[in-house]
């Protein structure tokens, strides 16, 4: 047995970190399992929350905005429209929240052993992915219901669906990119989470989830470009339902910007990694 010990403070580059994360990928499972356990432990309804949590707000919003306020929905049944937008938005919001809390939730693991910390935000988003799966399941059920009810399949069945998938992946990367920053801030300032919660609810309103983009007054539509989530959600809805507009150039720009942010996040995260551990 040849054990090699290495002491000292080092700040590896992004490349080295990526390799390191890949070598420690088995830890992702551990972190993911811990994330699930922490989530519903000591709650009365337990795993039921997993279903209630995403569905109840959806149903209430569909009743209030669809039935009561009659918000237009690009010709789709409002529930389906809202569910589609929510799938993309909630993936972003849940990933952002879980990624941000990663260091705080699993930090005590760092006191014991070494591993690349970037594992934590990645592994901790597992429940968000499960929620996505549950929502996709509900989506399929809703599609079948509306097919029987209206005799029409509202979802597209061509290659455009891949754009929807691209949008989902981009939402995930965007959330991860932000949480590479916020998880570090969250370690030193506790308010980060609350500020993020507030920001997230405002951001939600500014993203066309409850309403279609066509509803936004002409004068303000130009500003939407600055909200990457609006572009992502619109692209998702276009890819899945074929409603709304798809602007390939805008989407490409958004993807590039998010890629840049992700890279910047990785650099920031690896630079501060050593410092976070000391700050604990």
């Amino acid at each position: 047995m040849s054990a090699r010990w290495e002491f000292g403070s080092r700040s590896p580059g992004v490349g080295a970190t990526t390799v390191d994360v890949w070598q420690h990928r088995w830890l992702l499972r551990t972190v993911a399992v811990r994330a699930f356990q922490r989530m519903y432990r000591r709650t009365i309804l337990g795993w039921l929350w997993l279903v209630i949590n995403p569905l109840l707000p959806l149903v209430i919003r569909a009743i209030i905005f669809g039935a009561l306020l009659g918000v237009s929905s690009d010709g789709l049944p409002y529930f389906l429209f809202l569910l589609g937008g929510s799938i993309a938005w909630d993936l972003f919001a849940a990933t952002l929240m879980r990624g941000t809390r990663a260091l705080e939730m699993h930090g005590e693991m760092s006191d014991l052993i070494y591993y690349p910390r970037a594992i934590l935000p990645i592994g901790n988003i597992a429940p968000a992915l499960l929620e996505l799966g549950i929502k996709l399941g509900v989506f399929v059920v809703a599609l079948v219901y509306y097919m029987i009810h209206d005799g029409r399949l509202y979802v597209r069945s061509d290659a455009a669906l891949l754009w929807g998938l691209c949008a989902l992946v981009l939402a995930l990367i965007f959330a991860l990119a932000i949480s590479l920053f916020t998880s570090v801030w969250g370690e030193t300032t506790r308010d980060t989470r609350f500020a993020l919660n507030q920001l997230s609810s405002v951001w939600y309103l500014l993203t066309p989830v409850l309403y279609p983009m066509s509803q936004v007054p002409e004068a303000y539509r130009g500003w939407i470009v600055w909200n990457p989530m609006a572009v992502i959600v619109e692209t998702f809805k276009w890819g899945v339902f074929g409603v709304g507009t798809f602007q390939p150039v805008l989407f490409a720009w958004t993807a590039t910007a998010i890629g840049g942010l992700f890279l910047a996040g990785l650099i920031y995260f690896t630079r501060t990694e050593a410092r976070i551990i000391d700050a604990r």
Partner: protein
Amino acid sequence: MNPMSSSASEAAERSAWSISADARDGFAARVREVWQYRRILWFFALRATQALYRKTYLGVWWLFIRTLVPLIVGAFVFGAVINVPSGGVPYLVFFLAGQLAWNFFDGPLVRASRGIDGNRQLLTKLYIPRIILPLGQMAAGVVEPIIIAVILVVTVVYYRRVDGVWYVQPGLRLMAASAAVLVILWFAFALSLFTSVWQGRARDTRFVLRHIVGFWLFLTPVVYPASQVPARIRWLIYVNPLTAPVETFKWAVLPGMEHSWPWFMYSVGLTAALFVAGLWYFARSEGATMDKL
């Protein structure tokens, strides 16, 4: 304990120490106790208010930004994008009036629920009537509505210049508005008698609470008028005890609104019942909760 033979020293000890497990004083005794400790109430209120902005980068400005930004975005989205009807009043005024009423519930409830949980350190060291905690914490929740009230006044003055109409008329009706605010605050306090105990036991209560308050907002006619609900099923929305006070508040502040006194009385009755139940629950469980802190 060291057994003592002499009865004199035993008597002396008894007079010096009196520990009784059945500290179930009557209701009047509790109220008197809160009155005796009223200075601590101010202390908690002040501390909770300072906690709103202390140790944040932006200081007091954070408080304003946190209140203002969601209002502006909300008014834009619900008023300009979704075009929610507002009964003839500019949507911004309508929205601010509704938010003002709602924030007398939202902030106070969330803050008051933190009463026991946020003062763990203190509670394990000294005795104070615990009911002071949610009550004092609640005071901090009134700060945001005050900011919104100021914004509402500014907006009304603005529309006076633009439209030449005072959308808020001073008059006797404003008495009804304050009654509505009192009912909303009372309801928040009654509810916090339960939630503060739960949060003392399980800290994640606050996440569940935020969640519930988040969609409770949409079940209450805050961003839309109750008249938007089809008349046939309008009673459904009034079952929510916050609907009537919010509607009464908007009726009292704005012209051309509808409201219903019978439903208002229903809300008052329900709040009173909840309050009594809450007091009973709080008194019954405070001892056990303190042990588990």
